[in-house]
């Protein structure tokens, strides 16, 4: 069952990486094989949790031994404007005896207690390696619990050993498609409702573009799943268009929503100024094609003109402070190419960008913006080489995720977090200004001169 699901996800016809592959390559599946002793990144369970945990008002219950939830709860930086139930960690904390006797009864009791205590609109139950290994059938337990307890209990079958974090993201999307979306009919569906897929409200980024949508009269039914309420996700099938943000995570969900409910989708990004504008244009176009007032198009253009002018004007003062600084961008997927443009606009030189998780289309766009210099695109840079780049002055700073931060910092080089633990939102027009502001604060901080100077006796 799980195997079939994984096969299907690996074969996703709408995935642009897959479209560039031969049939044989596609069969091998996506993502590199995980190499023991040289692997990095989370497991499928981690990925499923990242994709679903931002649903704020439900209980996220992990069925496994302690580590899976105990070592990770409340550690992701998705913000909420409503309930904070999602910030509590719930787990069956399987012990020795549970593993011998089986954990299904314990899981049922845990679901029951969670519902009694918190009255959530739903409970999401996450399978883990150990739960799967001892043969606990979470789908059966969830089904029994749903019918006996009268609250939807959603099985998320993505045990860690199933594969990578990315696969887990997709399995999370599958759980929503199979069990959640389409189960609530809202009374207020309108002609300008949209969903945004693959957006997790990290550092409150939703509120860097939600107000723009509101000004255009567009309603975000739900983000999947940043700052989401269960009832809104369950009603997501009534939206008129879907935007897919992190294409490799949830494009399968978008395709299935199109097939089942006729919701058109496009892949876009809110990182970068022109990317934000393109995204708004695409949303407006799709809504008008599906019957929204055509005046939306001209209103969108007016808003774009106004916001772009404002953003570029706000970036201008940074040019003299940042011109000529060499920056290394080390992050996956969409963020690379869409951020390059903004950095170049303030006069920075992008000396390298990783395209580890990028699609061919991402790579093409990044390359275009880097003057077709293939050398600047790397699949992966080893920490040792990265360290040398900083020590030899080939890069003045790095934008990356937390994992590589110490390579830069220990080389006494400025670094900014642009991955999921970041503390500043970098989305849309305001976000890009905020990113450049953070870069300025970092690279022009007075500490660098002092800490790079040798001690007096050296």
């Amino acid at each position, binding site marked *: 069952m799980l195997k079939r699901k994984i096969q299907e996800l690996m074969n996703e016809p709408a995935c642009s990486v897959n479209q560039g592959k031969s049939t044989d390559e596609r069969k091998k599946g996506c993502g590199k094989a995980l190499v023991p002793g*040289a692997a990095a990144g*989370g497991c*499928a369970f981690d990925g499923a949790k990242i994709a679903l945990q931002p649903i704020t008002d439900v209980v996220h219950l992990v069925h496994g*031994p*302690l580590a899976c939830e105990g070592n*990770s709860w409340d550690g992701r930086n998705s913000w909420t404007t409503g309930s*904070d139930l999602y910030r509590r960690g719930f787990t069956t904390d*399987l012990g020795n005896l549970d593993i011998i006797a089986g954990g299904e009864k314990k899981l049922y009791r845990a679901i029951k207690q969670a519902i009694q205590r918190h009255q959530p609109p739903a409970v999401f139950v996450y399978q883990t390696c150990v739960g799967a290994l001892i043969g606990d059938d979470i789908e059966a337990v969830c089904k029994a619990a749903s019918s006996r307890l009268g609250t939807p209990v959603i099985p998320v079958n993505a045990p*860690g050993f199933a594969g990578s974090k990315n696969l887990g993201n997709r399995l999370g999307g599958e759980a929503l498609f199979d069990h959640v979306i389409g189960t609530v009919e809202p009374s207020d569906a309108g002609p300008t409702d949209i969903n945004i897929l693959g957006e997790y409200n990290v550092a409150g980024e939703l509120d860097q573009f939600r107000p723009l949508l509101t000004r255009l009269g567009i309603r975000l039914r739900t983000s999947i799943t940043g700052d989401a309420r269960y009832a809104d996700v369950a009603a997501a099938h009534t939206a008129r268009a879907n935007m897919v943000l992190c294409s490799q995570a949830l494009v399968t969900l978008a395709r299935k929503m199109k097939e089942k409910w006729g919701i058109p989708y496009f892949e876009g990004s809110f990182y970068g100024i022109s990317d934000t504008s393109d995204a708004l244009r695409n949303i407006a176009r799709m809504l008008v094609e599906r019957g929204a007032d055509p005046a939306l198009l001209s209103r969108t253009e007016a808003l774009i003109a106004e916001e772009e002018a404002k953003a570029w004007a706000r970036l201008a003062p940074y040019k003299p402070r940042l011109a000529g600084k060499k920056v290394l961008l080390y992050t996956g997927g969409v963020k690379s190419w869409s951020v390059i443009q903004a950095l170049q606009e303030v006069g920075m030189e992008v000396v390298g960008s990783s395209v580890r998780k990028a699609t061919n289309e991402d790579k093409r766009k990044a390359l275009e913006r880097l003057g077709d210099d293939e050398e600047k695109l790397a699949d992966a840079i080893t920490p*040792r080489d990265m360290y040398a780049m900083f020590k030899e002055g080939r890069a003045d700073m790095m934008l990356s995720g937390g994992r590589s931060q110490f390579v830069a910092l220990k080389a006494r080089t400025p670094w900014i977090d642009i991955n999921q633990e970041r503390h500043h939102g970098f989305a849309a027009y305001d976000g890009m200004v905020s990113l450049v502001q953070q870069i300025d604060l970092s690279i022009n901080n007075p500490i660098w001169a002092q800490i790079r100077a040798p001690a007096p006796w050296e």
Partner: protein
Amino acid sequence: MAIIVDQNKALSTSPLKISAPLGAALAFMGMNGCLPMFHGSQGCTAFALVMMVRHFREAIPLQTTAMNEISTILGGMDQVEQGLLNIAKRAKPSVIGVISTALTETRGEDMAGELKVIRARHAELADIAVVDVSAPDFAGALETGWGKAVTAIIRQLVVPAAPLPAMGKQVNLLPGCHLTPGDVAALKDIIADFGLEAVVLPDLSGSLDGHVPDQYVPTTLGGTEVAAVKSMGRAQLTIAIGEHMRFAARALEEKTGVPFLLLDRVTGLEAVDRLMVCLSNVAGVPVPARQRRARSQLVDAMLDGHFYFGGRAVAIAGEPALLSTYARLVSELGGRIAAAVTTQALPCLGDLPVERVVVGDFEDLEEQISDAGGCDLLIANSNGRQLAHRLSVPLFRAGFPVFDRLGAAQMVSAGYGGTRDLINQLGNLLMDCPGHNHEEHSHGHATAAAG
């Protein structure tokens, strides 16, 4: 005397417990040139790694055997073999710790036996000490994994007694995982003050003290050398700190004949006095002037600070050793332990100056505090922040993980000086807040202010 309550709930909410494999990995962080590896799914490593990175604000060398569905069914020894070879090639470590997880232990693998076979097959592993530790997530918690790793290092690396002549100046120190790199550094200083040389296992003060190396290092940045571990049989005495170090200390005694002294803590006047007497006896010198002065400073801090502790209600959540340390200190200063929550039902907790110790999570802590009519101060790891916010009481961050404060690694509570600083920090928090029942205490504050 305390009653220990272990409810064994079906639903753990906002866990306090940190997993045993993470504790084992943390112990290996105190070995020099080390790169440990979890035998499990990628996620086992990723979660532990991220948590340690957030706590220490340092790069954490930790790898994974990246178990998949097929290797889970067929057995994971090929993954272990590949992992060892890759680590040996890429990082050239002197030590590799191979730590099992719930996944591989549920399946059941003979890691020790298979490792022998793997090592015999590969000459490139000959110069690397490979230590295997069985530390499944479903048994025990952070302390358990740490203790098991130290025991495994001792059993697998220490040279048995006979060939090693005793070195008059050497003592072994086995610090528990509740002690920070700062604590370990402070204890090393104290031991050096007596003219003794300490072999510390593990020594986080060499690796995770937060410093900037001159070059890129893919392994731990410092810590105990393998050669030093081998020579632990030369010591006169082993000092182990925290009940969870008892197994390791006993294993060392069995292997080398070096006797051990187990101290439940090294925080608090009487507790540090015991350490001083012990070191003075071993070294055959009187307690040095510097330590006598530090003691006097601690006595003064207790005089100045006790006003703010008297009658105040403090709630504590932590692993057994951490809970014991803080609960005893607070009650020695006149405070009352309103709630005590921990991760394991250990008999030694029965002696704590509290009514009951609950084995549980942050939800249990909330209930205990509510039953006690509130509290003035919460002592817990950073995961206590949501509760502290709900209760509007200050949170003093202690234990692991502390991810929303700077300097978690440098915080010192060991020795006279560490105790003095800790009393000042806790006292300041109590001074700041009038308390949940402040009329009762206003007289004490007025006296203190006038004094």
